[in-house]
């Protein structure tokens, strides 16, 4: 969890086909090795990118 203003919330390292990114999650129920999918990404007006992921069920 990050408690820094502007970056509050759950975050973690995600590996996608060899590319590693630090992404955001809407859930705390993730464990190491969990499969996730990217649900949205983009660039904020201040120029910082964002990557949101959610767990893949099943």
């Amino acid at each position: 969890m990050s408690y820094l203003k502007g970056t509050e919330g759950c975050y973690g390292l995600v590996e996608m086909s060899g590319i590693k990114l630090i992404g955001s999650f809407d859930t705390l129920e993730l464990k190491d090795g969990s499969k996730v999918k990217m649900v949205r990404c983009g660039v904020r007006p201040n120029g910082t990118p964002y990557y949101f992921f959610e767990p893949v069920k099943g």
Partner: protein
Amino acid sequence: MRKVAVSSWATSTFTKGTTKSVFDLACEASVQLIRDNGIPANEIDAVLFSSCAADQYSSAIVSEMLGISPRISHRIDNLCNSGTNAVASAFAFIASGLCNMALVVGTEKIDSPGNKLLWDVTRGSFMFPVHWAAIFAKAHMKKYGTTEEEMAMVSVKNHKNATKNPRALFGKEVDLEEVMKSKSIASPIKLLDCSAPCEGASAILLVSEEKARTLDNPVFIKGIGQQTISASFAKASPDLTTVESARKAAQIAFERSHTKPSQIDIAELHDAFTILEIIAYEDLGFAKRGEGGKFVNQQQIAINPRGGILGCGHPVGATGVAQVAEIASQLAGKAEKRQVKNCKTGLVHNLAAAGSSASVIVMGV
């Protein structure tokens, strides 16, 4: 290759909120070094300026302000590793015969662009260094059982050491409970697990062996190792319980200096976050892999006697220079209240940007 010694040093008081410019700060430390040691400024034939500040042509500006017209003058900007990289460059210039006397001065202002890593898109929104430090900490805790209390003890130790350093940003001890109860920043990293960006400067003078022979207590640079793995966090360390660049840099430095980790008496380690000092124990071979957490309370090696980055504050471009200045002063027996007895061989370890690059310097008398 010629031998190179650190002949003199001066570090300013690290602080926050000064109205002085990076140039004022750099000149203060440099002038103190030159005056206190009676250095003939016209013999300084290299000036290397370490800073992440936005100011351009800063090495030439500092040289002119100091009244020096060096053969070699440039700036080195490599985030937290800047100062140690500048020392390595000065070492190489002297060792190769390109110059005989090099002034290395590092400085930073608190608003330095080096404090936020906007260029690394792999970090997403989490571009503050604390975010990757928390990932390293989680990985080390999970793989080796390192505890938050062990990390907190690094902060307790280094803040205690800083009380003996009149130039440290923090002059107050903290206890384990205070660290553990301090505000959570990025779990499991708490406020007192983090260093604070601040302002300050440090200057050292490197000289050739010929000039060093005229000194009472020359401190020689015995070996330097440097390694850059990447710029981005994503490629820095495949295993997040170790800093690969530091391991490789240490291996090179130990080989070049013909030194073993067991011979090190005193060390300045990069502790911008408490977990980094624990990982450094392992990367440098002081502790076995996974046992860094339990190494915090050891007494064999004096670690971060000036208070480290946690206790002194972190003026990014000055930190590496201040680390070398501390080890030089300790080995020369001139470290005042914080003098460690009988130290003969010392080490400086410094990192940048999630350990994507590292420097290790072995020094001795």
